[in-house]
């Protein structure tokens, strides 16, 4: 493994008396793709929200690029270079493709000292980004509410590829995609990782995890139940880790 990009050290999260995360420790290297697996309710999405600044951990600490790190808001995480694609899409369907692509990061030019949206520049950037990813959308000025589920997800995926950053978190990114679009999505992940960006992908589909990830981390009941290199395990072994039937072949835990 290359030098660690993000290190989680005994991160916990309680909702009242319920312990969603009981102490999660693992790390992600630069350019590494880690698949985060686990049953429903295992705490995967909670973990992603903690890294992405949507939730604060109850205890534990995180190191990002070797420095103590805690994002109090998604804006802070983004500023540090962490991009997130959420399970339920984060698009504003009442505005067009361009506005969604640049959400919160609009290109502006100053007119009499007032920032004014530079629509033409933004449209050019989006057009180029979508074209290079092979995504076809009839008009970039269409409101997202008129687009299909696949087109919406494609916008989000292209958005994270474009903004890049240092670490990308993907929570079930291919839920609404067809076979061909999923293949392209997996290619996008490899391409992003080859640029030295760390990728954490949450998925339910074992096949996807084995196709793209270098390492597989399994979370079960709020703890890391397995952390193994892909080539040292098998889908069956991973399923056993997820369901907790056996820890045999699970490798070093936590």
């Amino acid at each position, binding site marked *: 493994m290359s030098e660690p990009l993000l290190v989680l050290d005994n991160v916990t999260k309680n909702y009242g008396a319920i312990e969603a995360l009981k102490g999660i420790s693992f790390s992600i290297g630069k350019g590494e793709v880690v698949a985060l697996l686990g049953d429903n309710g295992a705490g995967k999405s909670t973990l992603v929200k903690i890294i992405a600044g949507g939730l604060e951990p109850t205890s534990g600490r995180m190191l990002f690029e070797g420095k103590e790190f805690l994002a109090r808001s998604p804006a802070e995480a983004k500023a540090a270079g962490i991009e997130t694609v959420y399970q339920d899409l984060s698009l504003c369907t009442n505005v067009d493709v361009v506005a969604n692509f640049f959400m919160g990061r609009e290109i*502006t030019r100053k007119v009499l000292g007032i920032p004014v949206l530079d629509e033409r520049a933004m449209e050019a950037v989006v057009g180029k980004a979508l074209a290079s990813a092979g995504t076809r959308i009839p008009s970039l000025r269409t409101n997202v*509410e008129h687009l299909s589920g696949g087109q919406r997800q494609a916008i989000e995926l292209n958005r994270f590829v474009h903004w890049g950053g240092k670490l990308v978190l993907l929570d079930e990114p291919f839920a609404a995609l067809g076979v061909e679009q999923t293949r392209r999505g997996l290619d996008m992940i490899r391409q992003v990782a080859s640029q030295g960006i760390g990728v954490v992908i949450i998925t339910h589909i074992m096949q996807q995890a084995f196709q793209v990830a270098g390492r597989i981390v399994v979370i079960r009941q709020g703890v890391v139940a397995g952390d193994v290199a892909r080539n040292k395990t098998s889908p069956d072994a991973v399923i056993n880790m997820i369901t907790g039937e056996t820890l045999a072949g699970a490798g070093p835990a936590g």
Partner: protein
Amino acid sequence: MNPRTRNALEFVLDNLVWFMLLLVLVVFSLFIPNYFQLGIFANIIEASSVLGVMSIGLALVIIAGHMDLSVESVAALSAMAVGILFCSSGIGLGVQLHPEWLMVPVSLLLALAVGGLIGAFNGYLVVKVKMSAFIITLASYIWVRGLVLVISGGRSAQDLAPAIRWFGIQRLMGLPLTAWIAVACFVVFSLIMAKTPFGRHLVMIGGNETATFRAGIRVNRNLIIAFVLAGAIAGLAGWLLAIRTSGATANLGVGLLFNAFAAVVIGGVSLKGGVGTLPGVYAGVLLLSAINTAINLMGLPANFTQVIHGLLVLAAVLLDAFKQTIRQRLA
């Protein structure tokens, strides 16, 4: 459907309320004697200035996905504050400043500050304490109006200082300056909503607040600014109202809130948030004003106005649903 008819249809749908306004003006001009004259049209714009300004603030907050029921009472309080300080009879204190024109910025700032403060109070409770905007601003609607009654003792202030009154008397191209102020407000805030990141963010917050928060937009800050703006704009409406009536009474502006709501909805703003533009709202305001003028000219009892406004709001909501189905076919 070829792209050109499609674009044309989209254009009509986007600007439907303007076409309705045009249609109404043409029909009234044809069938109501004396309707078609510049003076009448000028009057329509003039009569809609207070309502128009108030509707801008209300529309901002609704587009951002919230609600501000307090704008009417806030306008009344601002008007009363200006009235008490700068009126010379009734409960007016008749404060004089030298030079006289100084009373203009002072009274304007006072009105804006009163409105902005109440807006900030509403915004803080809604955003930070996470209470329902409907309840918070309903409470403000009541207590602010109560405050107007308390500070005025139910009496009125008359004879506003001539330096301030000047804005209601001085005309430019047939319209008093107060009407121009309303038009300027629409232009400025339309540009802010359509062309600046702040406006874009408000629209997106109204569309999907979670998504904008995740995208790193400072949702709370933007929403509080929207409430402060709505309050300050209502304060400006109050200032205009004080000029228009040359003073302030305790029941000044009662009922304006519902007209403002009607204008906003007719103008194509969705109460669900995220949908609507300010030019549309202005068309809605003008439409209401055009109908009021027609009722006056025809000599119908003024009581009919309310019935017609109510039906108009109903028509606007139905029309909105109809527009949605057409758009879905288009997509």
